[in-house]
């Protein structure tokens, strides 16, 4: 499902912003560079053992499974916040694909 990145930005601002930001580690890790990064691997952030031990690599597909039920994908995780609606997940992922690219990375359209 192709997501709406602009709606995803609004969802991010209302649902994710308590713990996350694109460029700073807060309660949760920063999202800059998320796509293609191994779970539990943002340097400097203190992850749960479950995230550090996971072999998951973040992609649109794995993010969709994670957001639907984090505990199902990585038992022992600490996020525990899920996004039940598939359309909302698609929009959030579209936003993250747009906003969380590594600095200096030029996305080819």
């Amino acid at each position: 499902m192709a997501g709406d990145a602009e709606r995803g930005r609004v969802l991010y601002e209302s649902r994710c912003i308590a713990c996350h930001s694109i460029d700073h580690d807060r309660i949760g890790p920063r999202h800059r560079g998320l796509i293609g990064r191994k779970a539990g691997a943002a340097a400097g952030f203190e992850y749960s053992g479950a995230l550090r031990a996971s072999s998951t690599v973040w992609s649109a597909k794995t993010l969709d499974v994670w957001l639907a039920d984090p505990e199902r994908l990585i038992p022992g995780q600490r996020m525990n916040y899920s996004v039940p609606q598939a359309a909302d997940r698609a929009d959030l992922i579209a936003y993250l694909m747009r906003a969380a690219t590594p600095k200096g990375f030029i996305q080819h359209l």
Partner: protein
Amino acid sequence: MNGHASLNRRCFLTASGTATLSAAAFGLIAGVPRLAAAQSGSMGRDVDILNVALGLEHEAINAYQLGAQSGLLQKPVLDVAVLFQSHHKGHRDALIATIEKLGARPVAEKVLAEYARALNAGSLKNQSDVLDLAARLELGAANAYLGVIPAFKDANLAKVAARLAADETMHWTALAGALGRHLPGGALTFGA
């Protein structure tokens, strides 16, 4: 009125009073199982959620501290910010008491400078900037607390999250009014 209603700013500007932290904390944890019961069950996930919540409260306390110290807030807005900070201190105290009652270690508060960096506090230029940051954090916290309610094993802890969400929603509503923003036009906009 095209589906929206303006919030009277007095809702924010006339808020006053002091929080009764100890009473709130004791009331919040009254139904929480004691250490022995907690250890015999699968409460580890619940404790993890509570510690994430505590991290949120640490950040909120420090965000209001940054706002109060910035010199950008004028009375009576400053007084309300301090009041909201006291609510978050009440949440913090209640969460710490609950986590300890469950036999776990509460997550520690960071230093103020770390919160300032993470929240990009250097970009705050006026009172509206401070209120906007606070409103964004309060809305996010309300939705976060509502979002984790189904994940709790213990119904008493789920109720704790619901009560925290109610406080954050109250804060967001007052802040939105102070910023001259509209109330949500539709029902059930929080926790969706």
